[in-house]
């Protein structure tokens, strides 16, 4: 007992004399709600490696007055109900910020829980509806689907010049945003959307859907699906039915985890994203090299946005001098620019970051090759 009193007195006296606040020893907890199981668990794995890497860097840098950042991982299992439960658990366990957003429908459900309560950074989900809600503490690292789709659709229409397009996509919020954008952009052109097939996530076979699309004889097939295994399956079945003269896949969704199991069926498919390893320079090249060295794997877009999410949150809390005054942190996030591997990120009033560049890819081997680069702003 006497020893405990003595020890407490020594710690208190040290803190007082050194001028360190009592909370300096407490870690700042970030809740990272990602799919660790379920059909998109691969995204969770990519995100986790990058988030851990960012935390190691932040903790080594002595940011936040020397307080350590601690990541609490929760599994959203690829469903909105599990996502909501996981966010609630992280908040109950003292998370000062929530990093959640790999799938738009799930992120929408999660953002209803975090609204006005805690800082929520959505690293990967793209649907515009997420940041259209007007949630003051919600920020998005990835481009919106409208930003990405507008550039991509412009490329498809003006550069590839199909006369007719057949469209198939999973019935989700993301798909809806992409399809609406495509329809809007086609209004002012002669390109016809000859077939639209929106399928449910429980669909196990696409033969009949592809038969239907082929019967419309389109010049281009445009697939919108973010689930790697299903993406591989769809493209295999498209290839088995002879393929289409022009083939495109939704932006931001084509990763090696889909290309590899497709076993060559995605070769030549045109897509786009905010990340490409080919030709990377400066901070991006350093990020890629460090990621490879640490994880013995190739980084991808998911790794990039999760890495950036951790760094941006830590930077904003540090600059704002608080981990829980969210008005101040949100103001700091909007009022400053943030250096990341992609370059300088700024957030608009709706909390959306815009990546400086958008890349048009074409699937080549087990990866993608750069076809074109566009400036987003």
């Amino acid at each position, binding site marked *: 007992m006497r020893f405990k009193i003595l020890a407490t007195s020594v710690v208190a006296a040290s803190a007082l004399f050194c001028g360190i606040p009592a909370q300096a020893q407490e870690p700042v907890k970030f809740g990272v709600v990602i799919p*660790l*199981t*379920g*059909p998109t*668990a*691969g995204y*969770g*794995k990519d995100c986790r490696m990058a988030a851990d890497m960012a935390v190691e860097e932040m903790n080594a840098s002595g940011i936040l007055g020397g307080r350590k950042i601690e990541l609490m991982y929760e599994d959203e299992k690829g469903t909105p109900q599990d996502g909501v439960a996981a966010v609630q658990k992280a908040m109950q366990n003292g998370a000062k910020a929530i990093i959640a957003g790999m799938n738009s429908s799930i992120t929408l459900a999660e953002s209803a829980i975090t609204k006005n309560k805690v800082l929520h950074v959505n690293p990967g989900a793209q649907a515009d509806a997420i940041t259209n809600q007007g949630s003051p503490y919600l920020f998005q690292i990835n481009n919106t689907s409208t930003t990405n789709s507008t550039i991509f659709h412009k490329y498809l229409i003006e550069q590839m010049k199909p006369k007719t397009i057949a469209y*198939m996509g999973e*019935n989700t919020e993301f798909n809806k945003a992409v399809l609406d954008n495509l329809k809007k952009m086609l209004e002012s052109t002669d390109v016809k959307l000859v077939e639209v*097939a*929106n*399928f*449910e*996530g*429980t*669909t*196990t*076979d696409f*033969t*009949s*859907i592809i*038969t*239907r699309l082929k*019967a419309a004889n389109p010049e281009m097939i445009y697939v919108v699906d973010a689930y*790697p*295994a*299903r993406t*591989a*399956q769809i493209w*295999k*079945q498209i*290839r*088995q*039915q*002879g393929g289409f003269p022009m083939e495109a896949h939704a932006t931001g969704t084509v990763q090696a*985890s*889909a290309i*590899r*199991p*497709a*076993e*060559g*069926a995605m070769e030549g498919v045109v897509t786009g994203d905010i990340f490409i390893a080919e030709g990377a320079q400066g901070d991006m090249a350093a990020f890629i090299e460090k990621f490879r060295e640490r994880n013995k794997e190739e980084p991808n877009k998911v790794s990039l946005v999760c890495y950036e999410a951790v760094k941006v949150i830590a930077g904003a809390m540090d600059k704002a001098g608080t981990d829980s005054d969210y008005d101040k942190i949100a103001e700091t996030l909007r009022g400053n620019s943030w250096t990341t591997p992609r370059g300088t990120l700024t957030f608009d009033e709706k909390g959306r970051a815009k990546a400086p560049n958008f890349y048009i890819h074409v699937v080549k081997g087990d990866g993608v090759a750069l076809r074109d680069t566009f400036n987003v702003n």
Partner: protein
Amino acid sequence: MDLFVQTIINGLILGAGYALVAVGLTVIFGTLHIVNFAHGAFFALGAYAVLMLQNLGLNYLVAVPFAVLAVATVGYLVEITIVRRALYDRGEYGSIIITFALAQAIVAATILIMGPDPLPVRSPFGQTAISLFGFFLSAQRVFIAATSVVVLAAFAWWLKYTVRGQQILAVSQNPKGALYSGINVPLIRSLSFVLGVAAAGLAGMLLAPLISAFPTMGDANVIVAFTVVILGGLGSISGAMLGALVIGLSNAFFETYVSVSWTSALGWVLVILVLLFWPQGLMGRTQINRH
């Protein structure tokens, strides 16, 4: 007309694949009265078993029978350690909870061991398509349909014409009566469970070259299997085959001629309609025969 014929072909081939997944489910329910929510997990285990054997250097066609044995062995271990102790004669409700937990455990273990990413399973048929009189056929799908027909026909023959097969039917109809007749009921129950999960595993092995191997690959397929089994009549093997063909053809026609978006609801609409007019399903036994 070409589209119509192609749609029939698509539906028949799809239905044959559904039948294989559904038959294992219905055998386990019919004989053991267990609603096996772990069926999808055994489906995935089949895919991973064939993938691991391929990684050891075996050809896909050689690996499949060994993988069936591997899944059957895992099934037997699960039967003697969990199912036999916790589920027999405990009713369907307990089985739902325990098999659901078992499914979660298998999926979690698969993620830990194999990782979450989809992995390609290579088949000699690959992405080859066969063109017959101008109609398209996926070689792997044809292989699945042919295997499904052969396996299911052999299974039906075995049930009807062998002593063991008749014993399975006897236990499914009246376990106590079967016991009093001198049938080794625990052995027959083990055999039924192992056959059921082996069928699920075989379905996973056959479909893996089309959909890749990933831990939750069984989820969507087992949902379809449930609609097939309920439609055909719980516990009825011939009902499962008929249900699979009905669902396969209906899905193909609906997707091609009506609406892709509504197709996933179609199976359940058919189930509701059939149950309204035939409460035991298309070929299910009436409740009075169950115990």
